[in-house]
């Protein structure tokens, strides 16, 4: 078997007051387009920071292309390009200056300039080449961040919410760019809060919640493994409802109600009984698979509820 692009083994991270990562293990294979999902504060950025050496794990082990990110940091950092979530930039420099500086940090000189020009071109930055970073719009700064992460042609590319606060057009451009990188053989790890994005791009998805891995699979299986399906009825259910039924309702809109139901339903299941008590029979329900978003919301919600209990 080939070396994994990223391998995490029991990674823990404790801050003074938060336990940000509670022993996370998984691997991302070379050539994958991998999605890392999770609600705000789940620990996604912390995990990414540890991969790039921006943060130190409290315990556990992380390897990038087989190189330990602490002991063999030179080799691991040469193989990973991280686009940070925050729109950071150095106000002293222009786009071109910043790229040559970043490329120089990786030991690359003039011989790399052709590649930097190509990056500018691909990311539509050529016009802004000599503009000071301070004067670029947010979207432009985001592109520069991407270019900076790629100056050393890393085999592993990590995008931490690259589409946050980005307009529709740029979002499309970024996706096609990510696709292209993937086709060219780069391993991509992506975090996003747009589930459709993950749905349309990622092979496998890991869901992180409160510092723990709550799911890891390819999408179809993630959905297939999920023990619920969605029942849709063309009717508004309101008023006093039995407890089980009311907690199973996931949405009401105009004249339609969606209900989370077990995949395996016995005729005498209490939920069906409660439904029939309000006048709805099983054959009035359209049953469908949940979307990734519904699975995601449920995975991360139930963990929150468990925490409360």
């Amino acid at each position, binding site marked *: 078997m080939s070396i994994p692009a990223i391998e995490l083994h029991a990674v823990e991270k404790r*801050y003074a007051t938060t336990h940000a990562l509670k022993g996370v293990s998984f691997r991302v294979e070379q050539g994958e387009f991998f999605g890392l999902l999770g609600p705000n504060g789940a620990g996604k950025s912390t995990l990414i*920071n540890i991969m*790039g*050496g*921006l*943060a*130190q794990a409290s315990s556990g082990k992380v390897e990038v292309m087989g190189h330990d990110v602490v002991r063999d*940091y*030179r*080799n691991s*950092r*040469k193989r990973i390009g*991280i686009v*940070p979530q*925050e729109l*950071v*930039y*150095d*106000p*002293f*420099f222009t786009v071109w*200056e*910043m790229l040559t*500086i*970043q490329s*120089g*940090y*990786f*030991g*690359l*000189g003039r011989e790399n300039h052709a590649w930097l020009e190509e990056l500018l071109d691909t990311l539509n930055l050529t016009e802004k080449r000599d503009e000071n970073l301070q004067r670029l719009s947010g979207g432009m700064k985001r592109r520069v961040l991407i270019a*900076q992460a790629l100056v050393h042609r890393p085999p592993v590319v990590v995008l931490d919410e690259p589409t946050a606060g980005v307009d529709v057009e740029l979002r499309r451009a970024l996706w096609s760019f990510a696709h292209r990188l993937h086709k060219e053989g780069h391993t991509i790890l992506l975090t996003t809060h747009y589930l459709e994005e993950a749905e349309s791009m990622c092979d496998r998805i890991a869901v992180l919640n409160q510092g723990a891995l709550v799911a890891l699979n390819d999408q179809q299986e993630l959905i297939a493994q999920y023990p619920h399906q969605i029942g849709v009825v063309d009717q508004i259910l309101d008023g006093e409802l039995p407890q089980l039924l009311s907690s199973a309702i996931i949405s009401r809109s105009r004249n339609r109600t969606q209900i989370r139901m077990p995949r395996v339903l016995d005729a005498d299941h209490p939920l069906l009984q409660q439904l029939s008590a309000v006048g709805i029979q099983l054959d009035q329900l359209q049953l469908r698979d949940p979307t990734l978003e519904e699975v995601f919301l449920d995975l991360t919600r139930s963990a929150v509820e468990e925490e409360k209990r």
Partner: protein
Amino acid sequence: MIGFGCWTLFKKEVWRFLKVFVQTVLAPAVSTLLYLLVFGVVFEEAVVVYEGHSYSSFLIPGLVMMTLAQNAFANSSSSILQSKMNGNIVFMLLAPLSSLEVYIAFLGAAILRGLITGGSVLLIASLLVDVEIYSVGLILLFALLASGVLGALGIIAGIWSEKYDHLSAFQNFIILPLTFLSGVFFSIQGLSPFWQQVSAWNPVFYLIDGFRYGFLGVSDVPYLQSVWVALLFLVMLTGISVAILRSGYKLRG
């Protein structure tokens, strides 16, 4: 292994202060010259520190050293603090640079800034008054040592600080007293025995005393002693800086 990455970081740091040349080189040079004009003129006739040397000959090396030291310190400390506050320090942290390389790059840039600023003061001063030169080699040696010591202190201060308040506290409560109580404006031999003892522990005193020896050929302590003290400090601060960088303290969360 010191590589091209280190060289790039050094160049970037130099580039940074040259881009704001007026603020980083010109302004400090002008304010030092004001000291020279005011103190030099007022005390020129009245004060003789070393027999046979005018007060401004005594003052100039001290002022040059003060400018050089403060600017070397300011360069590394404010560059590090600024990139931490802007968040752009991640670009350097993501790169395959060793702690030693980061240290050398920041130190090198701080030294260069110190030399350029101190040099400008000296150059302009020499147009205004006669500057005595005893040994160019010793002047350069002490200039290097001083900007090295203060540049290294700046690296530590920049990493430790979280906002400008912290940095100015460091500057006002450590750097400034060390500089002013080191014999910029006077010889410590005029001090009471107690303060002479205190000055003996002040590294900046040795830097100024040795530096002045390079100009006048006279000093309070033998210049070789000053070389050793300065070297000792530089080695110590280098050890501390590299250890801090290696630990990731306040940089790699």
